C-alpha cells in the first residue's frame, strides 16, 4: 500500500518562502493532480516528494515511512520530467533499462522489461535510436516508458505534456489515463492546465502562491468553488463574476438597476449592504431555443451579442451584463452576428455568491 502523506510541508529558497505548510493525504492508487498558475509551488512540492529538493519543514511519508532524509533511490518512485530528461547518450532501449541495470537485474530480465514497456507505449520500432533522433511525442513516450519499467510505488509527473502540440497532448492525456487504469499505481501529476487536471484527476489539488486553495474531485471544484480564484481557474470559459450589493436579505442589486435574487444556496448567509460578486457559468446563460431544457427558477434577459466563438457543438457568446462582459453558450448553434439581440435565460439556482472583500464563496 502506498499512500503519500504531506504534513505541514514548508519550503524556503533562501529567504523566499515557496511553500507555506502543505497538508495532503493521497491514498493508494489515487490519481492526484496538483494544478495552479505557474510559480505556485507545484514542481517544488513534487520534487520534494521525489527527494530532489530538501524539505525545509514538515514531514513527507510514502507508504507509511517518513522519507525526509532518504535519497531518491530509496523512495521507490519514478518521475517523468517536463523536458523528458532522457539520457542523450543512450539508445531508447538503454534509457528504458537503465534503472534496472542500476538495480543489478540480469540482462535477460532487463531486456524483457524494456520490451514490455515498449509494447505498452508503442516504442518497438524506436528501440535502437538515440533521443536526438526522436520527435517530441516519441521522447515523451520514452520518458513514460522509463518510469513504468520499474513498477514503482508512486509515479510523479511534472507537466509531462506541456511541450507537445495540442493534438498530441489530448492523445497522450488519454494514454496516461489508460496507463493508470492498467497499472493502478498512485500517481501525482503536476500541470498548470485546468483541462488536464479536470480530465485526469481522481482528486484535484488547486494551489496558489505556495498554499493549497481547494482539494476535491473535479466536479466538486467545478460546482462548489471555495472562492473566486477557484471559480475562475477551473472551467472553460471561466466563471462570470459581476459586482453587486445585497439589498434586504434576498436581493442582489447589480449595476444598471438590474437585480437578481440571492441564490438558494446562499440564503440566510448574506446581510443587507454586503458587497458581493455574483457568479455564474456560461452554461447557465443560454438563449431560448438553444438551451438545455431544465426546471428551476430563472431570469429572462435581453442581451446584445458582441462577439461569437463557434466551437462546433456549441458557440460561446460574449455579451454585456450590468456593465461587465460575460460569456454565455448557445447549443445547436446557428450563425449569430455581432449586434444581434437574443433573449437569454439565466438559471438562478446554479448561481454563486462570493464576498467581494475576501473573495470567499458564500454558501450554506
Amino acid at each position: 500500500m502506498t499512500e503519500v502523506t504531506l504534513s505541514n510541508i514548508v519550503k524556503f529558497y533562501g529567504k523566499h518562502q515557496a511553500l507555506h505548510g502543505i497538508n495532503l493525504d493521497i491514498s493508494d492508487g489515487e490519481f492526484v493532480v496538483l494544478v495552479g498558475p505557474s510559480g505556485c509551488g507545484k514542481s517544488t512540492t513534487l520534487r520534494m516528494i521525489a527527494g530532489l529538493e530538501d524539505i525545509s519543514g514538515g514531514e513527507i511519508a510514502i507508504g507509511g515511512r517518513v522519507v525526509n532524509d532518504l535519497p531518491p533511490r530509496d523512495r521507490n518512485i519514478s518521475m517523468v520530467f517536463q523536458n523528458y530528461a532522457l539520457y542523450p547518450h543512450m539508445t531508447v532501449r538503454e534509457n528504458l533499462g537503465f534503472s534496472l541495470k542500476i538495480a543489478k537485474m540480469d540482462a535477460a530480465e532487463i531486456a524483457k522489461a524494456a520490451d514490455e514497456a515498449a509494447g505498452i507505449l508503442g516504442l518497438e520500432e524506436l528501440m535502437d535510436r538515440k533521443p536526438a533522433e526522436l520527435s517530441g511525442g516519441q521522447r515523451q513516450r520514452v520518458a513514460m516508458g522509463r518510469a513504468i519499467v520499474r513498477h514503482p510505488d508512486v509515479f510523479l509527473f511534472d507537466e509531462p505534456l506541456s511541450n507537445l502540440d495540442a493534438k498530441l497532448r489530448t492523445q497522450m492525456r488519454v494514454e496516461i489515463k489508460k496507463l493508470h487504469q492498467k497499472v493502478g499505481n498512485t500517481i501525482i501529476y503536476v500541470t498548470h492546465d485546468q483541462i488536464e487536471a479536470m480530465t485526469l484527476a481522481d482528486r484535484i489539488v488547486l494551489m496558489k502562491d505556495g498554499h493549497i486553495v481547494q482539494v476535491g474531485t473535479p466536479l466538486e471544484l467545478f460546482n462548489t468553488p471555495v472562492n473566486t480564484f477557484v471559480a475562475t481557474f477551473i472551467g472553460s470559459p471561466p466563471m462570470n463574476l459581476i459586482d453587486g450589493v445585497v439589498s434586504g436579505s434576498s436581493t442582489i442589486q447589480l449595476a444598471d438597476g438590474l437585480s437578481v435574487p440571492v441564490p438558494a444556496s446562499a440564503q440566510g448567509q448574506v446581510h443587507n449592504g454586503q458587497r458581493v460578486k455574483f457568479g455564474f457559468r456560461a452554461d447557465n446563460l443560454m438563449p431560448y431555443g438553444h438551451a438545455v431544457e431544465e426546471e428551476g427558477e430563472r431570469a429572462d434577459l435581453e442581451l446584445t451579442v458582441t462577439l461569437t466563438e463557434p466551437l462546433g457543438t456549441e458557440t460561446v457568446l460574449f455579451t454585456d451584463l450590468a456593465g461587465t462582459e460575460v460569456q454565455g453558450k448557445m447549443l445547436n448553434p446557428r450563425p449569430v452576428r455581432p449586434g444581434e439581440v437574443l433573449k437569454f435565460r439565466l438559471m438562478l439556482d446554479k448561481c454563486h455568491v462570493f464576498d467581494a472583500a475576501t473573495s470567499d464563496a458564500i454558501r450554506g
Partner: protein
Amino acid sequence: MTRRRLPEWFLLLLPAIIVIAAVVLIPLIFSLYSSFTPYKLTRPSTLWKWVGTYNYEKILTDAKFWAAFGRTVLFLTIALNLEMLLGLGIALMVNKVTWGQRTLRTIIMFPMMFSPILVGFQFKFIFNDNIGLVNNALQSMGFNVALPWLVDGKLAMFSIAFAEIWMSTSVFAILILAGLFAIPRDPLEAAKVDGCTPFQSFRHITLPFLMPFIYIAMTIRSLDVARAYDIVQIMTGGGPARRTELLWTLMSRTGYVDARMGLANAMGYVSIILSVVFTIYFFRKLTAARAQIGMEG
C-alpha cells in the same frame, strides 16, 4: 594595348601567401631537404651533398634515439593520465564549491601563467640534493637521507614529471570544469530518481558528458608534452648520462651542440609521426565521445 593582369583574388591573397611561404613552407621544405644531406652547421658546403636516406637509416638503428623516443612516449602517457585524473578531481571539487568559486578558478590557473623555464628553475631548486626544499624537509622530519632527485635516472624522470604535472594539470582542470558547467541538470536528476548513487551518476551520466572535453585536453596536451624541452633542459639537460633524454633534448643536442643539422632534422621528421599518431588517436576518441552524447553533426 592591354597587359595581362593577375586576377584580383590572387593579388589580395598574395601577402598572406608570401608570409606563409616565408615562415612555414620554406623552412619546412628546407628542413626536409636537409634531412637528406649530411648538413653540418659548421660546414655549410655539406648542404649540397645528397646522401639519400642515410640519416634515416642511421636513426632507425640508433639505440639512443629509440631510448629517447620510448622515454618520451612513457613520459607522455604517465604525465597525461596523471594530469587528467588530478584535473578531473580538482574540477569535481571546484564544481561543488558554491562560495568564492571565481577566485578559486583563477588560482587554479596560476601555474599556467609561469614560463616553463621558470618552473624548471623552481623545481631544480626544490629537488636539489644539497640545498633543495624536499631533501631539507625530509631531513628535518628526521629521515637522514639526501635523495639524488635529479641525478638518479628514475628519480629525475619523476621530478621532471612532477614539475610538468604541477604546471599543466590546470589545463585539464579548467577544460573539465567547463565540461561540468555544460552538463544538463535534468539527466542527472533522472539518474537519481532511477536509483543511482552519486558514484553511479558520475560513472554513467557525468563521465560520458565529460569525455569530449577530456579528449580535447588530451589532444592539446599530447602535442605540448611531445615537444617537452624547456623544463627538461633546465632541470637535467637530458642528463645525467642521457638518463632523462627526451626527443627534443636529443634533437637540439644533435642539431646545435653537435651541429649535425641534417641528422637532427631527420629525427624531427621521425618524431612528428609520434605527434600525428597521438593526435589522430585522440581525435578519433573525441569524435566517438561526441557521437556518444549526441553532439555530432
